């Protein structure tokens, strides 16, 4: 099993990928150093800092099933959603930023929300380790299943009831799906939504921020290239065509 197979597969098809990505390409052996050798060019695959190779294999396959590439727009892999996870889980958010972490710990009602001691990073590591162990015990790998089988397995996680090394499967699935949507639609500065593909799909203009003239042109499509935070070289926008006093 190669964790690079899927990324390479996507790379070879580029943005035109229409096939379900979970149809496994022949396992290609690509030296990890190949990426480093071309480090001066814009990378066309993510460089993972947090996930190990086995975690990458699961995450890339799972995210692409949650948001698959099809005729409606980019899939999670094209949008680099797994890269978003990697940077979030490897940073402050993964370490429990903005999570009240004092015990005692006890199970609450659903209305009381998350009550586990795991940080997001610990939660993903623990759950993916359990999932990969479950497949290894059967000499299988989640990422080598066909799309239907992957979907069926994700539905068992979504249904809850399964224990993933102490992480309830439903809790894991919920955070996996929530963060997949985040990585798909967040500003590209966070590592996902590559080339603002998800914004283009729905017509969201991004950080661009002056609709004073357009707001009362009712029902008219607003056609404009989206703008990422990183691209806004203008600073704040308050141009002269509106009544302003400062």
């Amino acid at each position, binding site marked *: 099993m190669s964790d690079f197979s899927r990324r390479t597969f996507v790379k070879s098809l580029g943005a035109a990928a229409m096939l379900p990505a979970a149809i496994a390409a022949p396992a290609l052996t690509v030296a990890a150093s190949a990426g480093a050798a071309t480090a001066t060019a814009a990378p066309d695959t993510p460089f993972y800092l947090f996930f190990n190779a086995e975690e990458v294999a699961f995450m890339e396959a799972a995210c692409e099933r949650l948001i*698959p590439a099809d005729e*409606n727009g980019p899939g999670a892999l094209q949008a680099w959603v797994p890269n978003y996870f990697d940077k979030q889980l490897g940073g402050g958010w993964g370490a429990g930023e*903005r999570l*009240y972490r004092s015990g005692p710990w006890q199970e609450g009602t659903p209305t009381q929300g998350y009550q586990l001691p795991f940080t997001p990073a610990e939660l993903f590591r623990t759950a993916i380790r359990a999932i990969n162990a479950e497949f290894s015990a059967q000499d299988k790998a989640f990422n080598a299943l066909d799309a239907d089988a992957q979907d069926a397995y994700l539905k068992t996680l979504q249904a809850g009831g399964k224990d993933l090394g102490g992480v309830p499967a439903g809790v894991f699935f919920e955070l996996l799906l929530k963060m997949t949507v985040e990585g798909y639609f967040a500003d590209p500065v966070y590592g996902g939504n590559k080339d603002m593909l998800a914004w283009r799909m729905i017509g969201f203009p991004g950080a661009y921020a002056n609709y004073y003239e357009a707001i009362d042109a009712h029902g008219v499509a*607003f056609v404009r290239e989206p703008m990422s*935070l990183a691209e806004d070289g203008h600073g704040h926008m308050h141009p002269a065509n509106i009544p302003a006093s400062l």
Partner: protein
Amino acid sequence: MTQVMKAADVVIIGVGMVGSIIAKELAAAGYKVVGLERGEPRFTVPDFQGPGVHDELRFDVRKALMQDNTREAVTFRNQVAQTALPIRRWESFLPGTGLGGSQVHWNGQTYRFQAQDFAMASHVRERYGKDFLDPDLRVQDWGVIYADLEPHYDRFEYLLGTGGKAGNLKGKIQPGGDPFESPRSREYPTRPMKEHYSGAMFRKAANSLGYHPFPQPSSNLSEPYTNPEGLKLNTCVFCGFCERFACEHYAKAVPQTFILPVLMKNPNFELRTGAQVQRINLDSSKTKATGVTYIDAAGREFEQPAALVITCSFALNNVRMLLLSGVGKPYDPASGTGVVGRNYAYQTMSTVASFFDKDVIVNPFMASGASGTLINDFAGENFDHSKLGFIGGSFIGAVNTNGRPINYHPVPPGTQAWGKGWKKAVADHYNHTVMFSIHGSSMAQKQNYLDLDPTYKDAWGQPLLRMTFDFPKNDLAMAEYVTGKGVEIGKAMGAKQVVGTPRKGPYTITQYQTTHNTGGTVMGDDPSTSVVNRYLQVWDVPNVFVVGASNFPQNATWNPTDTIGALTYWAIDALKNKYLKNPGRLVSA
């Protein structure tokens, strides 16, 4: 070792909207005022500037401007019989922190309550009879009437530059405004904001059904404005990053734009940030405050003596400050005695989604926080409840505040939660859906209250606030009824599918609803059912005043900020013209 600071005339706990307005008035009147703010100092320039302020993930999803819940959370349970557990991530409500407080991230929706709201118990008794209310409800009068507050509403709205169209000027109904509102002494200081397409569709449909649509009163400015403090605000550009965000344009009325530049220049005022107040200190009689004890950002402890203590924090934190300090008797739901923490209420929020075909282009991302169009026909006491079995109501409005896609991607019910079906539905509906806000009242109920948690602590070792809350049956019945009216408006707009989602119980802290937490330090005429008198002075400790939404005996239909502002100027008037001239009880108990 505690360092004792030079005594001040007044110490203010929390330099948000209320704290900065009171500090400005009292410092200008010659009193030495110390403002203690737990968060950081921050100003439009350089702190709120682009492009960084337009970051949905950081501010909207991760809630960067909110109270640091890793140090100071709230515990929650639905019922007394349950064990309260910490709200480990904010979702349902979002208290802010830092200079300017929660108002920095507000939406600017600026409504007055109606005359009946201030006399809710008497009004209901007179109109529907003494046995109409569910006996578990704890509805009561405020101890002030609308006419007391009208000049203070007016002053507050002129401070902010609120835009709108009056519907009732000195008793004369005005076309284009809200005909149900209580009389205004004059027109809004600025005109209404431009109307979004969703609002225009709503207006047409509401008119066709015989309702009375009007432009949402907005403190995101529709035109340049110079307020009575001499401060200039700009025109809002509808950037779509309003609630949960700070405004880079000087277009949203927040303390940084309407008062702080004046306050900060007054040498009678001293701001100390990073100051976490631990308690109000009382003398041995327990009827007089001597000042406050706080810990600074470096962990050093200070005592700030003061002749007058005013707590102006977010509603929940006002309640907690009194409980931590032993000011006022804590409420006990079993016996029904005590007052601090009593009458905690919220807001009952429902929605209606109207899904259109792709030829209707809504552009949800063009938005201010308060540029909607709405009706008050089913708000408050504007309709007859005698056959409905509940009191209270909701406004219904097309209040399009943003199209930020992580949190805003409406899909019809029955859509797959993920996969191809989800993605297609998102792509099909993102730009072709109109959402209504059904924004409803919340009645106090004897089982809903705030106290100190017996188990969980903050970073300074003090007990967290414990919230026990579920929706009263009265409010769920109200939500069901008014949401049905909203669905009819959606259908009249010609949507292909209209989905009403009335609020259901149990209350959950896992879903954002609103940051309109009210009650717990209720105002009133009776010390057995209120913490503060009609001037917001603590009955038991007359040199402590409490100002905020924690004063509301129950919550009315609308957003609370305008009423908090009116109460702020009302209290300032009592402080300047009564209390400070002759300190003592303003009302005999």
